[in-house]
């Protein structure tokens, strides 16, 4: 199951990068998000999986695709002057990031504990637990995020409406 969802995620991400057609790239991204949702389910967190699908694939990507269709430019624009060095720099950066993250995971204390005492059966996440965590442990962060979103919403309305 893990391999299936990981493959969906990775192939979707690769497809998104390599597709020249913007709409196809968007749909590949949908596949990626779907795979990530599956991985969340495997991590005993079905709430995050449902929210991932509701928020990212159900709302955000629909709006992104919507705007792409409105603009009516479905092909990726060619670069005005090709700069091959960009590719090499990005490749080096990706390699460094991958190496660093793998090293971090392998060196973490959690992995050592897992090797010594074995995996505990995880408790499935429920909406109640998410709510408690948000409102009891992370209240300030939650309120700040809410405030930020409200400000962004008002800003968007103010930018698009010329005469308020």
């Amino acid at each position, binding site marked *: 199951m893990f391999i299936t969802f990981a493959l969906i995620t990775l192939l979707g991400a690769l497809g998104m990068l390599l597709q020249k057609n913007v709409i*196809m790239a968007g749909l590949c991204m949908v596949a990626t998000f779907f795979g990530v949702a599956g991985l969340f389910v495997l991590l005993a967190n079905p709430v995050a999986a*449902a929210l991932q699908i509701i928020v990212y694939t*159900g709302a955000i990507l*629909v709006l992104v695709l919507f705007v792409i*269709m409105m603009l009516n430019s479905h092909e990726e624009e060619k670069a005005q002057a090709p700069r091959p060095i960009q590719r090499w720099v990005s490749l080096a950066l990706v390699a460094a990031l991958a190496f660093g993250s793998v090293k971090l995971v392998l060196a973490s204390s959690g992995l050592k504990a897992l090797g010594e005492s074995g995996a505990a059966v995880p408790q499935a*996440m429920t*909406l109640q637990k998410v709510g408690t965590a948000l409102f009891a442990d992370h209240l300030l962060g939650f309120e700040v995020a809410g405030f930020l979103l409200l400000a962004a919403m008002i800003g968007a309305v103010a930018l698009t409406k010329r005469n308020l």
Partner: protein
Amino acid sequence: MDKLASMLHMTPAIFWMVVKVVIVFAGVMSLAAVWTWVERRGSAMIQDRIGPNRARLFGRWPILGLAQIAADGIKFFFKEDLVPTDANKRLFWLAPFLAFVPALMGFAVIPFGKSFVSGGQTYHLALLDPGNGMGMLYPLAIGGMAVYGVLVAAWSSNNKWSILGGMRASAAMVSYEIGLSLAVISIFMTTGGYDPSEVISAQGHLPWAWNIVRQPLGFIVFFTCMFAETNRLPFDFAEGESEIVAGFNTEYGSMKYSLLALAEYSHLMTASALIATLYFGGWQVPFVKDPTVMLSVASFLLKMLFFAWVFVWIRWTVPRFRYDQLMHLGWKVMLPLSMANLIFHAWRMSQGH
């Protein structure tokens, strides 16, 4: 049950899972097919016509034109499968599946009858057992995925009418989803849980304790939003004969069109099942405290089919909305109503009710 399972070399749990998958998918699909006939006969009844009554089983038994479904199916299978020259072929093929699969999947979490114990094992009458952690979030998530069927079908046809239809429909679906979610959240709040089985057992067997009585405002919002979500008249902005021909499925024919049409009716079934579960006590039988399993299934089916009929009824009696009226209704009426409902129930709960 155990004997049958051991005859097929399966454990009872796996056997029951297979049986449930067959019941749910075959049931929803065949009900959706039957509902195309109900729609045509119903519209004829409402408009004082006769409707399809010519198709006969083996050329002999008319049975109210029910053979029309089989005739339609056979015709769709043998029609030429056309793909427009300038269409994006891969997506054009993919779109009917993108529409049809979420439409069928949405039903999986809904309990269509009372759980029962047999041979020391509990059998749940829902594809996803209670306590799966997704609960009512699952149909909302799958409902969100349904937009892609319309959007991809519209864009891949490479037809201006199709794109117009698909874009209006997806805009409407996304806007109405907000009001819908807020209405569902107020049910989560008063129930204290978000699993459909919890929602049903919290409502009890007395009709005046059902959520329709407790949250009439929420019901109105949810019901209206369901019409936008299923793209049914009066909110059918994916189509619109007088403006954009058949909208997102203009270029579709043969079995691909049939899948798109079946997807619409499967959505209708899931929507009516959701209404029955959230607001009308699901499989609870009015005034019967501990119904038998068959009675509970019958009660659920009756409620669900009643609402499926209401969808047909409203389609043929209420005139269509204009696009700006639809958006106005969604953002300026349904969303505030839904928020008011949420805040009212939060206030009541804080007062200790």
